[in-house]
């Protein structure tokens, strides 16, 4: 496996993630990743914010003897607008925008692995749309299955909340083949220092684990199930609020019409009741999904 000289970014892996704390570190990692691709004559694509694009270009110029103009840059937010719909990435629109771009590059550079860095997922997380980011990772994985793409993603640790016992973080890691050394680990000077760093972290984590174990002696499992239940209730509550909100508004509008119109508009009332009914159907579908998931988890 080829690896870049300084950061450990895999050149043969398909989908890696870098968790980082500051932009300078990120720019170094991405520049190393791109420079590896450029030296091998591979097409390179960056989908980043303007601020990070500037930092990556500067790191490429400063650290590597490569032509920065060979990198294709796209703005992360602008690209998101091409396929986000109703707060989620739309599969067909993603295929028409990012998918088409990758396909075009693959046709123009056959037999070449595409090096792509993308941080649209980080932009989504910064906007508190972590679920959408996880869906987007899935769409990228579908693309990677079809084309020779080495994708590097990055998440700033400060945008990832840890209110669910780390379940979301685990899910994000699970979307990737490689999780690269975190910034603090990568900054350790040698292997001994890295091992001390990991030991120190594990020691601190013990403070957050439950003191008692269940009859099976599995404290971590108890914690994980509890976090999963909290997350499940939270998501279900959120999903139910929207249709219940519209259902109530439609019924209140119908009642209002009955109370103020001397001659009620029956077709208008019928339309409102039908719309309310459609929302009630949505509520029952969500409840069915919830029950199915509960049964699945119990099994």
């Amino acid at each position, binding site marked *: 496996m080829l690896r870049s000289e300084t950061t450990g970014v895999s050149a043969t892996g398909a989908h890696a993630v870098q968790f980082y704390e500051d932009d300078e570190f990120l720019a170094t990692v991405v520049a190393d990743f791109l420079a590896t691709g450029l030296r091998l004559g591979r097409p390179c694509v960056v989908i980043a914010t303007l601020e990070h694009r500037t930092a990556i270009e500067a790191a490429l110029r400063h650290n590597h003897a490569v032509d920065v103009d060979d990198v294709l840059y796209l703005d992360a937010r602008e690209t998101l607008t091409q396929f*986000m719909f109703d707060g989620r990435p739309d599969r067909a629109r993603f295929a028409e925008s990012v998918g088409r771009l990758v396909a075009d590059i693959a046709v123009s550079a056959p037999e070449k692995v595409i090096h792509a860095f993308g941080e649209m997922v980080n932009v989504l997380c910064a906007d508190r*749309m972590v679920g959408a980011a996880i869906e987007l990772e899935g769409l990228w994985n579908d693309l990677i299955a079809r084309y020779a793409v080495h994708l590097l993603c990055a998440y700033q640790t400060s945008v990832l909340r840890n209110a669910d016992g780390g379940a979301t973080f685990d899910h994000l890691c699970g979307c990737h083949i490689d999780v690269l050394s975190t910034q603090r680990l990568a900054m350790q000077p040698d292997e001994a220092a890295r091992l001390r760093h990991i030991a120190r972290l594990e020691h601190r984590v013990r403070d957050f684990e439950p003191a008692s174990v269940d009859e099976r002696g599995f404290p971590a499992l108890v914690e994980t199930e509890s976090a999963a239940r909290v997350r499940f209730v939270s998501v279900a509550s959120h*999903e139910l609020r929207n249709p219940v*909100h519209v259902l109530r*508004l*439609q019924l*209140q*509008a119908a*009642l209002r*019409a009955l109370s103020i119109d001397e001659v009620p508009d029956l077709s208008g009332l019928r339309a409102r009741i039908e719309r309310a009914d459609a929302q009630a159907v949505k509520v029952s579908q969500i409840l069915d999904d919830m029950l199915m998931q509960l049964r699945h988890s119990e099994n």
Partner: protein
Amino acid sequence: MNGPAATTCGNVLIVDDDVDGVDALKYLLESHGYHVDSAGNGREALEYLRTGARPCVVILDLAMPVMNGWQFLAARQSDEALASIPVIVVTASQPAPGAESELVMTKPVDLDDLLARVGAACAVTERRHS
């Protein structure tokens, strides 16, 4: 339903991508005397406001395509001409950092409460411009 007395003036902008929700809320507000416009996402709302339209209050959903409510709030805050327009955030989510300074209502909203808050926001805006 015991809403506030009908208001003879007061423009309200609803920013939400849920057509059925917008339709019902628009009817309810109009039946209480408000003039209501709507936008399907944050970008449409900004374009509307940048035509010079000045609603007394914006009723804002957060989860929307193209430009969500948080992005709209950030854009509004950075635009001096728009920063003073009151916003009522109506959301199924927990209030976000960008929305902390706004009036936040959780779905499903209590209509009387929403009407009272719209009325109060309109009164403040109208006093400011009189």
